[in-house]
């Protein structure tokens, strides 16, 4: 099963700037495993130390949140799109009480 994994802007830096990768997988978990095995730096952005998906990273199969399906065990079929959607906070820009710029 070939599925398309969509990589969001903030994480593209850790995936050789690609906006998506095609992977062979039967479940969402397998698709993400393949992704992080190809792009090791993504791992700490997607997973906590205990191996669970980080709570500010949501994963969707097509339009549906896997938290309401079978989580990482959610099956995927040929042509499905797996989207990684992290929270982003930008809005006003360089002000605010966000961490100072580097």
């Amino acid at each position, binding site marked *: 099963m070939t599925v398309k994994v969509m990589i969001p802007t903030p994480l593209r830096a850790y995936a050789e700037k690609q906006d998506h990768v095609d992977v062979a997988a039967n479940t969402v978990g397998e698709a993400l495993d393949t992704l992080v095995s190809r792009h090791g730096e993504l791992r700490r952005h997607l997973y906590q130390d205990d191996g669970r998906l980080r709570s500010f990273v949501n994963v969707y199969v097509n339009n549906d949140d896997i938290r309401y399906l079978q989580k990482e065990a959610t099956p995927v079929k040929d042509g499905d799109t797996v989207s990684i959607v992290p929270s982003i906070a930008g809005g006003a*820009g360089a002000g605010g009480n966000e961490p100072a710029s580097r």
Partner: protein
Amino acid sequence: METKTATAEAAAAAVTLSKEEILRYSRHLIMPEVGMEGQLKLKRARVLLIGTGGLGAPLGLYLAAAGVGHLGLVDFDKVDFTNLQRQVTFGTSDVGRRKVEAARERLSNLNPGIEIKVFETMLTSANALELFRDYDIIVDGTDNFPTRYLVNDATVLSGKINVYGSIFRFEGQASVFGAPGGPCYRCLYPEPPPPGLVPSCAEGGVLGVLPGIVGSIQAMETIKLILGTGDSLAGRLLLFDALQMKFRELKLRKNPDCPVCGEKRTITKLIDYQEFCGIRGEEAAPTVSVPEITPKELKARLDRGDDLFILDVREPHEYQICHLHGHLIPLGDLPRRVSELDSSREIVAHCRSGKRSADAVAFLKQAGFKKIWNLKGGILAWSDEVDPKVPKY
């Protein structure tokens, strides 16, 4: 309570449009979806904008132009020169002014017939519920996680609608939270990322038009909610990729276990959102303690002819803006390019403001480098203290 409602209804019925307003809003009035009834709804509407920056600019301009009768603006900031690239409410002559004042002036000029209240304050757990009380719709145009969670929780606790928009570089998100029976922001993201893992706008940059698009979507959703027309983004997360010029949408569900709007809620009052987001004290990011050299000390040593190796850990596109003739190795590439460095030489690492290079120095010290310093304040401080010809960005 009944008397109050009756009074409110009487007041609402009394709202009419003047001849001038009928002309001003004529392109609304001739649309059946708005019409006289809709325009009066807009005139009676009470909308609070949190933030008058990138998202707040199109929001304020379009909502004022559309005739939203009562606008509140919350911002504590002053107009900065770097804001003008995207915060189109402000002009060059506004630099240094209080944002809420500059915005009030601009919006009043655009539409003198509406009431604009400004609150020059940071939104906090202490003032949020009070500020929200007089408004029906809260529009989140903020730029940081603590305020986003605060806006969410305060809207849920006060039963208000939260029109959400967020941007990063060339990607945007929008939704409507807190609609009856609909999800809230915490249903989508129960927790924020730990500080430092996700770059902020100031670090990552943002394409100036992007907040214009996402803020306009928020303005459109706000107006639809006021008119009670169309399908709102409640229950949907709109994703926008400006580079590919693609809109996608994802289904959002109300999370039954949501700590603030779920059945067994654990958050029943506002909390400390800085702490919740892992940010303590004044300075958010924990700074690594590493040996430092000030720009003046560095200049003196270079002038003496000392053999110092300047390591620039910024990105190549930043090097193009300005540089100190350093050897460029972006922080992210440092681990695999460490062999390019000679540990027998004295090394001074720098970046824009000194944070990335502090990480670089910490990393190199661990890798066994002994003679290494971080340029305090980065190239910004070099520009301030040594060479004003070096542009700041």
